[in-house]
């Protein structure tokens, strides 16, 4: 053995030892994080992952309670004005100090064209700097749950965005990209090291982080693995440490292997179907000159044609809770007594359809993701089969979320499946984003079928500004009742979370399905 080989060998041994001490966490998900820009897509995986790099003013703790993040404290100084004291001594990953200017800038960016965060910024009238270490946020109307709504609006560095020409958000609808898609500069516990879209994203520990980090993970390698079977195989073979979601059919198999935990719990997410109720003629349908979904009887026929119990037992293997409401248990404002679905009744559905003037049904296109929610595409197929029973021919387009989201966010859809987690854990979030009439300010940004009822809009505004909990709850109930009566959407179920985790890894599973690596420990 010559000198060179010996040196190389020593180096290799040193490297291997080094690798075992510094814990690397290998994570796989069914789909990729769409962009590194935290304002580009209001989607759980996107916000969950970028939430390790970026931080908001306010965060959520392990029990979903509000905890200080970049703001140390906040108080309401007037009915519509809030004052947030900012944390001092915080630095972005590039070394720039964090100041009030960054906060003011972020709120502007979040409200700009192309941002998917308008739902969070719309109630805000103005954000003012109050010295270097405080901001005042003024809302249009009294807004008692403001801090709850700020947990997903991640703060970006003004200087970095300007230097990198990323002042505006990445627009997923138009396919506009900028530096912020591929690079990141936050204040969070992890910094972006490598970004290869659809292939591999690596983040490493930010040693200058302002807070103590509980976990011991120095590096996280995130890999999207689309195929369920391949993802499970990767976990079983030890190629990855954590995977999400575990395909329902493989939960038992993963548990039986003995080396893994399957963390299951109810998720706050509600899966539902939406229908285009705005256009005078559907874009994708055999019906010409009118829009069948404008007729409540058609919407009700669709609702009653869906055999939700079969979807629960067969498609979801009982890991779902059928729902009649757009929010589930665990969300403030959930109304257990109102959670009653119209009965499954294909005959009644057929009759309703005939009454509406479609005795032999019609054709309609349906958009569905195939790598976003648990068994999303099989659910859509089951719905298509159910609807075929009442004569409705569904032309199903199930595709990856990369093409699915831009399409439906442009509202180029007649009938779609979507899931929604109220990120504020409050019913107002669902009312405001999903059920209220769309405006260009951000209201109804995810009401993609443009269901509209002025009374519900009024009630949503009331829920937003009402401070008396009893009156607020009454308004929520009233709004839900209207939505139920109108059949504005067809709620399906709340899905169950399933994370597959190696035995030597401990993670904290939040009911909004976010995974924060600062709480992860590898033994």
């Amino acid at each position, binding site marked *: 053995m010559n000198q060179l080989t010996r040196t190389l060998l020593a180096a290799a041994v040193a490297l291997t030892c080094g690798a075992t001490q510094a814990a690397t966490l290998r994570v796989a998900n069914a789909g990729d994080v769409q962009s590194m820009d935290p304002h580009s897509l209001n989607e759980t995986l996107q916000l969950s992952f970028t939430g390790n790099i970026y931080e908001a003013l306010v965060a959520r703790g392990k029990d979903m309670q509000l905890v200080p993040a970049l703001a140390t404290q906040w108080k309401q100084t007037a009915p519509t004005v809030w004052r947030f004291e900012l944390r001092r001594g915080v630095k972005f990953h590039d070394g720039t100090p964090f100041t009030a200017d960054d906060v003011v800038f972020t709120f502007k960016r979040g409200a700009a064209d192309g941002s998917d965060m308008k739902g969070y910024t719309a109630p805000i009238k103005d954000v003012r700097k109050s010295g270097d270490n405080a901001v005042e946020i003024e809302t249009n109307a009294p807004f008692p749950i403001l801090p709850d709504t700020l947990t997903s609006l991640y703060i970006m560095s003004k200087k970095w965005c300007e230097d990198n020409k990323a002042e505006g958000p990445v627009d997923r609808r138009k396919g506009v990209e900028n530096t912020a898609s591929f690079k990141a500069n936050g204040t969070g516990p992890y910094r972006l090291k490598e970004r290869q879209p659809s292939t591999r994203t690596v983040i490493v520990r930010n040693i200058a982080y302002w807070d103590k980090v509980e976990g011991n993970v120095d590096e996280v390698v995130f890999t999207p693995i689309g*195929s*369920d*079977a391949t993802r*499970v*195989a990767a976990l*079983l073979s030890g190629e990855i440490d954590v995977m999400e979601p575990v*395909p329902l*059919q*493989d939960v*038992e*198999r993963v548990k039986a292997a003995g080396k893994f935990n399957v963390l299951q719990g109810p998720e706050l997410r509600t899966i539902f179907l939406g229908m285009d109720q705005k256009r005078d003629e559907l874009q994708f349908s055999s019906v010409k000159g009118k829009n069948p979904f404008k007729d409540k009887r058609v919407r009700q026929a669709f609702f009653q044609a869906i*055999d939700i119990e*079969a*979807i629960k*037992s*067969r*498609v979801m293997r009982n890991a779902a809770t059928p729902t009649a409401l757009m929010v589930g248990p665990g969300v403030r404002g959930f109304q257990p007594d109102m959670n009653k679905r119209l009965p499954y009744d294909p005959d009644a559905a057929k009759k309703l359809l005939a009454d509406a003037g479609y005795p032999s049904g019609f054709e309609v296109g349906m958009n569905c993701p195939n790598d976003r929610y648990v068994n999303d595409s*099989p659910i859509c*197929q*089951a719905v*298509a*089969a*159910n*609807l*075929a*029973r009442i004569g409705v*021919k*569904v*032309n*199903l*387009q*199930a595709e990856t979320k990369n093409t699915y989201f831009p399409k439906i966010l442009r509202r180029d859809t007649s009938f779609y499946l979507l899931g929604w987690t109220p990120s504020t854990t409050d019913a107002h979030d669902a009312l405001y984003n999903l059920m209220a009439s769309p405006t260009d300010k951000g209201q109804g940004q995810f009401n993609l079928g443009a269901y509209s009822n002025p009374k519900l809009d009024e009630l949503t505004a009331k829920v937003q500004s009402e401070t008396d909990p009893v009156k607020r709850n009454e308004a929520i109930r009233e709004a839900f009742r209207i939505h139920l009566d109108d059949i504005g959407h067809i709620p399906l179920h709340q899905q169950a979370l399933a994370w597959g985790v190696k035995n030597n890894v401990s993670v904290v599973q939040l009911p909004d399905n976010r995974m924060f690596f600062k709480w992860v420990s590898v033994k």
Partner: protein
Amino acid sequence: MTGSAALVRFFDGDVWHSFRTSPVAIGAAAVAFVCVFCALFAGWVAPHNPFDLATLELSDARLPPAWSDGGSTKYLLGTDDQGRDILSALMYGARISLLVGVASVLLSVVVGVGLGLLSGFAGGKTDALIMRVCDVMLSFPSILIALLIDGVGRALFPEAHDTLAFAVLVFAIALPGWVQYARTVRGSTLVERNKEYVQAARVTGVPPLRIMVRHVLPNVLGPVLVLATIQVATAILTEATLSFLGVGVPPTQPSLGTLIRIGNDFLFSGEWWITIFPGLMLVLIALSVNLLGDWLRDALNPRLR
């Protein structure tokens, strides 16, 4: 010599005798016949219609084959995650696989034979050009070309993709396939063009195109037939590969490859029948067609007779 005479010669006593005395050929032909028959007449033979969504019973989803615990005689080979009968899905799937396989081979035969004839008969610059194109095509893996064509097809017609999917798929598989025919036919044509009957035709003033089609073509078809048989199996496998990768036929019209891909997700959970049966069917079809092709090659080879 005319085309029909060539066919008569083709199926003359020797070939037929060789078939009758080869158990492998008879077995392969029988299996291929059953597969093709089931595929062609799936509408009548299959116990259910997996494409008719209205007949699907979600509560029957994921039933095991009839002989296993919990199986039902209503679904001999079990059902998939949507309650589709596997046996029926197999028949309909085989139809799509065969359709794509045969159609793409036909297309590549037409293109390949045409260009090969032209190349061999015309010679010179035409020959050189066509053969260099062949060389370029051969340097790409065929699956890569197919993926590329499929991708381009999707980009060009994003909305109409499902309706055009078959045409794009056939084209994608045929494009890398024609080269082999062109080379084979060119070689044979080079041999044939110097034979007396061609020279005789030329001397009597028959136009070149007519000589090519009426005189040379029938005499170079033998190897093409052998090649085409084997290529059908390859094309079916290529289609299955593309569908397995998720770029082939639309999911509402599952081919064997699509069925295998769908079933693949259930392998770990013990629901093996969803993927094993389509896989077996694919093996059966490809194997029998290949065996037939092998036999045909031997039977037509004068040196082995």
